[in-house]
């Protein structure tokens, strides 16, 4: 057979090839028409299990209506189990909303367990992050704390990956890609803060993805998002699909669990540390990850006392233990939710 020639005359392989070719052409047509492929595409913002769940709910409702369908058709819509809404063609109060408004769903719909955690030590290589006059750098601290956290999580039975395990520069895009490729269940980015004069210069805060109207947070996100490699259009598209999805809800829960443990652990030693709370902010490393993701500012190098403490191994270990405990607490709550769902 000459090089590259077709084997279409052979059957039954020919029928299979025809079927595959039709699939390929169909996929191309969808791409040309800018339609969702339905074949090869990256993760959907609404996972298929949700669609299955919604479909199942719809079928169950229909079945219930058939069994108990004694309600007269002229009864009010609510009494018939039908959604209350405007007549066809009249969008009523929702007229201003886009056609595909993302729907927030309950955590209980996906009671899945946490298995793989990706820890992301912020900065690295030529990107030092914040640094003290004495030369202590954010990139060293985040790597050390990430290693310690990873070891503890691994000992607790989690599969742990670090986005960098050496002092090297990793783009925000690659950090997120690494987590996505490894199909991580959680993504935890570790950073150390710096507060300028005039602000409380010592505190812990944990972020999850969301909009922010705090100028300080916006500036912080802008600094952390440098060199992301994404265009404005990319970011807008990503944000549109994520802000209202399930992942944001889960990320907030994870952020809460981590923030609580961090504050408790650090205040045992230094009660004056401020609990700056759980906040939302558009950090790109949180935008592009496909799993619940947080960014923890575990300490602040701008405070001399805290900078001194961060130089001490036992203090960094304390932070690592708190991070690990927070992740475990979140994981346990998810597992508990799964058990409850199974029991229902």
């Amino acid at each position, binding site marked *: 057979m*000459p*090089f*590259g*020639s*077709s*084997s*279409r005359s052979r059957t039954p*392989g020919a029928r*299979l*090839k*025809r*079927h*595959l*070719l*039709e*699939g*390929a*052409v*169909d*996929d*191309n*047509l*969808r*791409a*040309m028409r*800018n339609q969702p*492929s339905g*074949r*090869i*595409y*990256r*993760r959907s913002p609404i996972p298929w299990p949700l669609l299955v769940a919604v479909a199942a709910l719809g079928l169950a409702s229909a079945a219930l209506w058939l069994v108990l369908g004694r309600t007269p058709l002229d009864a009010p819509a609510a009494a018939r189990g039908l959604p209350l809404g405007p007549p066809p063609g009249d969008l009523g109060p929702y007229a201003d909303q886009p056609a595909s408004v993302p729907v927030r769903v309950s955590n209980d719909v996906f009671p899945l367990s946490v298995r793989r955690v990706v820890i992301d030590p912020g900065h690295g290589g030529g990107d030092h992050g914040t640094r003290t006059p004495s030369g202590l750098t954010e990139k060293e601290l985040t790597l050390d704390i990430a290693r310690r956290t990873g070891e503890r999580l691994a000992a607790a039975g989690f599969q742990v990956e670090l986005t960098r395990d050496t002092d*090297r520069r990793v783009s925000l895009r*690659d950090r997120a*890609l690494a987590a996505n*490729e*490894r*199909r991580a269940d959680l993504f935890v980015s570790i950073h150390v803060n710096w507060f300028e004069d005039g602000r409380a210069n010592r505190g812990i805060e944990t972020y999850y993805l969301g909009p922010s109207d705090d100028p300080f947070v916006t500036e912080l996100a802008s600094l952390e998002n440098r060199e992301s*490699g994404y*265009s404005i259009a*990319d970011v807008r598209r990503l944000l549109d699909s994520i802000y209202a999805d399930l992942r944001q809800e889960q990320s907030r829960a994870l952020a809460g669990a981590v923030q609580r443990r961090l504050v408790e652990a650090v205040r045992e030693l230094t009660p004056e540390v401020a609990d700056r709370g759980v906040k939302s902010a558009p950090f790109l490393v949180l935008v592009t990850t496909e799993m619940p993701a947080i960014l923890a500012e575990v300490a602040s190098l701008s405070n001399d006392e805290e900078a001194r403490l961060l130089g001490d191994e036992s203090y960094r270990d304390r932070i690592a233990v708190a991070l690990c405990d927070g992740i475990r607490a979140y994981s346990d709550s998810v597992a508990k939710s799964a058990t409850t769902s199974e029991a229902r």
Partner: protein
Amino acid sequence: MSAKEKVLSVGIDLGTSQSAIATSNDSRFVIDSYVGWPLDMVARKVVKKPVLIGAEAIENRSLLDLHRPLEQGLIKEGSEKDIAAVKEILGHLIGLATDGNREQKVRAVVGVPAETMRVNKQQLRQIMRGMVDSLIIVSEPFAVAYGIDELLHTLIIDVGAGTTDFCVMRGRYPTEEDQRTLTKAGDSVDDLLAKLIAERHPEVQFSVHMVRGWKEEHGFVGEAPGKIVVSAPVHGKMQKIDITEQMKAACDSLVAPFSETMVDLLAGVDPEYQERVRQGVFLSGRGSRIRGLAGQLEKTLAELGGGKVQLVEDPVFAGARGGLSIALDADDDDWEKVAA
């Protein structure tokens, strides 16, 4: 039908490191995916061309604004120069295939990474408008499977420079759940190898091209076949350096993610067919030449009940040949639908 009217079918593997084309008139070409424009008038006089492509561009890189326009198998975003470079590469390949006959009617199938997003496919279609008459874009491992006629209950692992693509063939056009794209591939091995050599031999001077050459000549996973000694300049003087340990660490970095992804995809296969898929794993792409890779993956399969990993014949052209087979099998109706 006159020769002028005759349709030329081509399959193209647009790769991060190399791009290949196979044609229905039995010719095939592979070029390095580099494009360079002379830096100034002097450079232009020296190279005597407005643009250089492939090996020629690499050889004259000191005189050129050199671009490697594909990153992780995709066109780099936001750079008009890189888009122009992709256009040059594709135009050059088509020119080689048609022997410069601009009147030649061309139908092309181009392979891209498995999880390429729709916008990138649209961008590619836009770039190829005017170059070809019709265009079908498929995932690279699907093209490989089609070319080797292993379309049912097989697993294709296409190890490229920018990405490694996995695809389980189960009798349908691959869906999202059938495919994975990893950025652990030839380039990631090169980067790690360069870093490890720089750490171990900080005095040695080397370039990414040298590192890539060393990997392609000596790359291995598992047991070292022997000492790997290469020549590189130290303060301008050539010296022999032992890079066995660094080569092992860099190449071994592929094994864990590959094994994990393979197992993940196998777990999604109907249990009835898992055994068949395990016995039908195929490695293609330039990166598949790393010695011992198939054996290491078979060790992973052994833990699942055993399996066989085979190297695809002619791995550099496997994707292009597959694309050509698709092009030849597509009907006129199919081509009309996807006119460029």
